């Protein structure tokens, strides 16, 4: 009986510790992260690198602070172009919901599995999409197709009878 009770207690503890949604960090990782310094305790270099996060820093969980401090450590090894991109996207990234960040990470891992040709095609597609107007973007989301460029529109085989009616 005692063994069974211990087994059940262990299972419950395991379930409680692992019962976090995929968007949230695991409970064990949250508990295991020691307290991280507040904004005023950061070094000057860390403050310069993490400047876009200054207003959010003191409200961040320890686990996110530690991650950003890790990125700040990697920062000097990045190219100037990459450094500019990271700093430009930092604030926007931090303001996303945990679910959006988790989704983006999953998609990015999937993206990295693609062949170079597919990656290039995807980038070109994104380039086209990002230049669309908001209305056209909504249309793409609904139809899952890029609108045809104006120059490529040809006279359809069947004349648009309904649109001609009002005239």
């Amino acid at each position, binding site marked *: 009986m005692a063994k069974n009770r211990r087994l059940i207690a262990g299972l419950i503890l395991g379930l409680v510790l692992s019962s976090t949604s995929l968007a949230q*960090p*695991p409970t*064990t*990782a*949250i*508990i*295991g*992260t*020691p307290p991280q310094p507040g904004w005023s305790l950061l070094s000057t270099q860390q403050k310069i690198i993490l400047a876009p996060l200054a207003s959010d820093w003191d409200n961040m969980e320890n*686990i996110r602070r*530690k*991650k950003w401090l*890790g*990125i700040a450590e*990697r920062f000097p090894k*990045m190219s100037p172009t*990459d*450094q500019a*991109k*990271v700093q430009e*996207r*930092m604030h*926007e*990234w931090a303001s*996303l919901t945990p679910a*959006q*960040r988790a*989704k*983006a*990470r999953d*998609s*990015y*891992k*999937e*993206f*990295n599995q*693609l062949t170079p040709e*597919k990656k290039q*095609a*995807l*980038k070109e*597609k*994104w380039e086209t*999409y990002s230049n669309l107007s908001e209305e056209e973007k909504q249309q*793409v*989301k609904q139809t*899952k*197709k*890029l609108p045809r460029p104006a120059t490529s529109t040809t006279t359809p085989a069947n004349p648009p009878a309904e649109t001609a009616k009002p005239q």
Partner: protein
Amino acid sequence: MNEERYASRIRQALNYGLNDISPIAARRLEAARHLALSKQKQKVPVLALAGGLLSGNGSAAMRGPFHIPYARQIFAVLALLVGMWLSFYWHSVQYINQIEEVDSALLSDDLPPEAFFDDDIFEWLKTDDSSPD
């Protein structure tokens, strides 16, 4: 059964014999009994692992002023908690390293994060539109 009867007879014989023991022999027996009991007491702290470890001296810990009640249990719980926290710490280091690596690559990629966090858009981006409808 025979053994029990035999033991009972010996006990009775000893009890009758008590009256005939000389005072000197009685004192020697008493001294021997005290000595045996004192040696038996010394064995207890050796088994008290936590008490011995906390004080550095088993027998003194059980009798001295620094005796901690439930020391063994407290020590076991503390060891368990420290072990659990170390395990959680290690897990957090691994988890943070992993997301740190992904985030730094994602934020410095040619594609912006918007391309990845919208499920519909990313699925659409992955599809090959080159084939005719």
